[in-house]
């Protein structure tokens, strides 16, 4: 109930936007090759639901594998960087610079290098999503207040104990905000990768719809992929809430 009230203004705006769009298409009689009405998009979604579902599953699979590996990879790298100042100073500028590379352009090359199996797609997803997480993890570790560190050192803690008992938990909030940013890109990156070469997936579907002059189906698939991202973000929010120690405690006690 409260969330309905909270979302009410958004829903009003969204409805207004869709109504104007639908009305514009109806009035100007623009070709549906160029600008399909929202109702055309929904109709396409319904008619093609089985096909779209199959492609969606493929995309989701790749995105989840890539994203999970990316999370693991980000943890490993962040720990390495945390413990080696030299590596951190060396890698950070390179990682920042690497974000300026237009990965779009690399995607076709990656298919050449790694074939059109899972590998290049997963790699691309990792490339795109891993940076925000590494950055948020390392800055999360660094956000550990000096005094917390001092407290543990004075108790005789080793570097590893300090990391595990203080740096890691104190990076939690920042890790999740990095995760959220990454998740926003995970699906989009997968679609990209599929553009460059795949058997199936939403990217392939969009490509085919475009080549067959079906703007309505392009938008249907775009809509599905936006929904996928929203679902992913919601799941992450849920995980964040449920893994809070306090939450667990309150719900078990």
């Amino acid at each position, binding site marked *: 109930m409260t969330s309905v009230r909270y979302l009410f203004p958004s829903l009003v705006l969204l409805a207004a936007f869709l109504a104007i769009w639908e009305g514009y298409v109806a009035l100007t009689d623009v070709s549906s*090759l160029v600008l399909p009405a929202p109702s055309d998009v929904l*109709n396409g979604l319904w008619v093609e639901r089985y096909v779209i579902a199959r492609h969606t599953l493929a995309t989701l699979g790749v995105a989840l594998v890539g994203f999970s590996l990316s999370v693991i990879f980000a943890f490993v790298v962040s720990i390495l960087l945390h413990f080696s100042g030299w590596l951190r100073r060396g890698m950070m500028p390179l990682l920042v610079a690497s974000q300026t590379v237009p990965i779009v352009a690399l995607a*076709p090359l990656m298919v*050449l290098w790694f*074939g059109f199996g899972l590998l290049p797609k997963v790699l691309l997803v990792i490339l795109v999503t891993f940076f925000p997480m590494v950055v948020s993890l390392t800055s999360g570790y660094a956000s550990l207040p000096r005094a917390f560190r001092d407290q543990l050192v004075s108790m005789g803690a080793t570097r590893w104990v300090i990391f595990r008992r203080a740096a890691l938990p104190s990076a939690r909030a920042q890790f999740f905000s990095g995760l959220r940013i990454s998740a926003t890109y995970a699906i989009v990156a997968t679609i990209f990768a599929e*553009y460059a*070469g795949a058997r199936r997936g939403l990217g392939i579907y969009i490509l085919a719809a475009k080549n*067959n*002059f079906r703007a309505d189906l392009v938008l249907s698939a775009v809509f599905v992929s936006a929904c996928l991202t929203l679902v992913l973000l919601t799941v992450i929010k849920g995980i964040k809430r449920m893994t809070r120690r306090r939450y667990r405690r309150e719900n078990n006690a």
Partner: protein
Amino acid sequence: DWTLNTNHIGLVVAQQKEFYAQEGLEVEILPYSDTASTALLAAGAVDFAYMTALGFMSAKAGQAPITALWVTMQNEAGRLVYNSGNDTISRPADLEGKTYAGFGSAWEDALISTMIENDGGIADYDTVTLGTGAYEALASGAVDFTLEVATWEGVNSALIGREQSHFVYADYGVPEAQGGYIGTQTAMLESDPDTVVAFMQATRRGYEWAAANPLEAAEILIKAGDFPNEQLVRGSMRLIADGGYLTDGNTPVGLIDEVRLTTMAQFLFNSGVLRGADGQPLAWPGDVSGWFDQSWMTDR
């Protein structure tokens, strides 16, 4: 339809030799981009477009308000290509169960399935959509076959010494199509017929000149575009001239053959790959003579 190549030779020649300027036209050739030229034309973003045959037909089937004025290739330049070293393939029927590197258009499936079935096989093969990566994937053996344009990718493969064999569509039940349409918006035929005529006349002169002087035309093309691989252009032009693609000597350059257009369109409709908004295959409109208009050829 694609990055500047020898298919566009007449346009470039007409521009470089100022045929357009002589008609009082200012023509800008836009580079290839990810948005299909057919769609751009249908949306009114450009006045004329160079379109693949199947792209044009698919769009027409979807009621795009466009009309063809010209066709470049009198012979089908497309063909199905596979590695010569792959001894499991000797005829289209062998493609059953193989992997195809595709480009994401519906008609590809119609074409390949027809070939396999007409050769007595079952059209059950795996598709990987790769785009241009297809040729590298084929060379590395990651896929078994793909489609190519003989006058471009074919020349490139020959230049870098790849051993590849091919099947010609027409040999296996696919109607022989003309390739590479130039078209305009239907509305423009009404509103500005003079421009259309002027443009097309100049274009025809360009292609005729190119057909007559293929090697000089290649040099003009090389000078006009930023071609990283000039040998490719020369080789391609030579093939176009030798293969009689622009003209077989009898038919005028650019003439649209209604019979072949109808057969090909009918083939597309019958294959059931073209679908409407309700998800059902489109019904054959019965007549496609309204799809093209070559009255400009005689208007002057």
